[in-house]
């Protein structure tokens, strides 16, 4: 067997640089696998950001030939006095808050239902996950047909029950709530699965304890089921917040921002500005407000809630 005392042991000890020849150090190994990916990500993520930043300081015109005029922070200032922007901002906030609440609530409900399934019925769990596999644009199409008065399920059911009326969910007043419901339909299954996985790790004895303490069903849920789920709920609050604020394809296929501008959330206002009005500089400035909104809202969630969870 190879003895440990090779002749160069002494010198190796004195020159750490030569240690473990032929083997990569932690740092080298890390560099080899991360640098190419990081360079790629920097190129394809930092470049567009940098480009957009540059655009945002310019007034871009296509009429009468392409022209870019340096306007400094003017675009940023203009956005703040833009009624469409503030309308979009409020709609985004409303849509996001509602989506987060609905997704977590429905995800929790789904998890509770499939948790209590007897073993023979467990395969139903696999069905509950399916909406998660539907793309956002697909969900948009589904909910467009589902909610419209002309084609919707509301009208169909009302008429089947003998009421001669049209029930439309895609209206000035209801469209955001209806869209939030659709977004929740799309995302709740994933939340349910993670909540379920956590629920199954709660010791069954705790439920026996709750029974001995004569807790009601609601109290059992509040004091036994819920506490271990708090971290998962926090993480998903962050994830769904980000996804809701940046969602575009879902709204695009569901309502195209309508009716009127009742569902023109920020991403949609941005899309109109940049792609329909071709006001690229202004759109770029707006996109940084959007980015700021995403970062600030996750920041707020983290500082008001996440830090407490992380410490436990």
């Amino acid at each position: 067997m190879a003895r440990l005392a090779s002749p160069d042991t002494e010198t190796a000890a004195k020159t750490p640089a030569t240690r473990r020849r032929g083997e990569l150090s932690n740092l080298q190994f890390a560099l080899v696998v991360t640098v190419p990916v990081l360079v790629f990500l920097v190129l394809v993520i930092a470049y567009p950001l940098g480009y957009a930043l540059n655009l945002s300081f310019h007034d871009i015109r296509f009429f009468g030939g392409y022209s870019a005029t340096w306007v400094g922070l003017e675009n940023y200032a203009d956005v703040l006095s833009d009624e469409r922007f503030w309308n979009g901002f409020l709609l985004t906030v409303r849509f996001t808050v509602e989506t987060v609440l609905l997704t977590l609530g429905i995800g929790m409900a789904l998890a509770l239902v499939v948790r209590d399934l007897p073993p023979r019925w467990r395969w139903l769990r696999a069905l509950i996950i399916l909406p998660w596999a539907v793309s956002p644009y697909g969900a948009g199409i589904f909910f467009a047909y589902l909610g419209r008065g002309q084609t919707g399920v509301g009208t169909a059911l009302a008429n089947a029950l003998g009421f001669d009326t049209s029930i439309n969910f895609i209206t000035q007043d209801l469209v955001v709530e209806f869209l939030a419901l659709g977004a929740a339909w799309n995302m709740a299954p994933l939340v349910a699965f993670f909540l379920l996985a956590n629920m199954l790790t709660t010791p069954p004895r705790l439920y026996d304890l709750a029974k001995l303490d004569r807790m009601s069903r609601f109290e059992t849920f509040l004091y036994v089921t819920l506490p271990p789920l708090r971290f998962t709920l926090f993480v998903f609050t962050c994830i769904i917040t980000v996804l809701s604020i940046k969602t575009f394809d879902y709204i695009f296929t569901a309502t195209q921002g309508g009716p009127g501008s009742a569902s023109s959330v920020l991403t949609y206002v941005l899309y109109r500005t940049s792609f329909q009005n071709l006001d690229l500089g202004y759109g770029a400035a707006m996109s940084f407000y959007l980015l700021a909104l995403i970062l600030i809202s996750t920041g707020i969630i983290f500082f008001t809630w996440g830090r407490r969870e992380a410490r436990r």
Partner: protein
Amino acid sequence: MAKIELNNVVKTFGTQHAVKNLDMTIEDGELLVLLGPSGCGKSTTMNMIAGLTDVTSGHILFDGHDVTTLPPHARNIAMVFQSSLLYPHLSARRNIYMSLKRSGLSRSDIEARIAKAAETVNVAHLLDKMPNQLSGGERQRVATAKAIVREPDCFLLDEPLSALDAALRLTLRAELVNLQKRIETTMVFVTHDQVEAMTMGDRIGVMRDGGLEQIGTPTEIYNRPETLFVAGFVGTPPMNFLKGAVIDEAGKRLFVRGALRLPLTGESAGTPPADQVILAVRPHRMTLTEPGEQALPLKVYAIEHLGNETIVVCDSDDHDRIRIVVGSEFAASVGSTLYAGLDTSHALMFDPATERPIRAGKREVA
């Protein structure tokens, strides 16, 4: 076989000192147990001996050769990890084989070695099972086979038994000691369980906060703890500590605490007078006695019947917990008062400031 020396070994993680200026020699063929609470640096020390963790400063020598910068496999050691870690996706046989894959031995030599190692720890019938099909004890034996198949100079075991139930630990402990004596290979065993340390070790190194508190045979550690920490950490039930003072009265030394006045005898008779001392005494060295100035009044807190003896857990007047071992037929009600005497010839005196024993030899010779 190897004698392992650690010379002034230091390990820092960032600004945090995991191991501080450690000097230690592990003799050839010895079973040394590193004992200490979690976070004391014992596992870090073992990882440095193994070569898994770089040493910040200092040197590690195997048989006088500096191995400080050698990678693990060049040190010819074998290691068993916490919970007897095995490659989960490989069968027991492949797991053992992995120890020799890089050894350059021929296939038939390897087969023979695996068979022999499996024979030694009785796992021949388990070789084709996957780790998740093995029980905790079986997994431990396979991990041991994986270690001995290398015929290493030194075995390193990092709390291999900690995840097992008490009865199984008892069996495997004896098996490991027996094995180590048969193959006469140096073994370092890390544990936080002082019973495990006492029963297994030829010597025990007690660590705390990255430093070595004391190293010695189980008897030395038990009878002559060199720090308050060691005194309190080793032994079941743990040592009793009594705060008090030592005074000189007509040439005789007395331990004084409230109304208690105990003449010091034996070695402790040489303790120099001091305002503050801690008297440490094993629960076995205390007895129940009549009230008097040589008796410590105690309030019964709990009674633990062990069958062959009974441990009376009491509160002293300043709310230190005091344990006394008495006969199995003892009975008393919780909250009742009893009086304990103690044999000061078996008591140790500690200086509360330094937490070190007050040496009788250092008293004034006058």
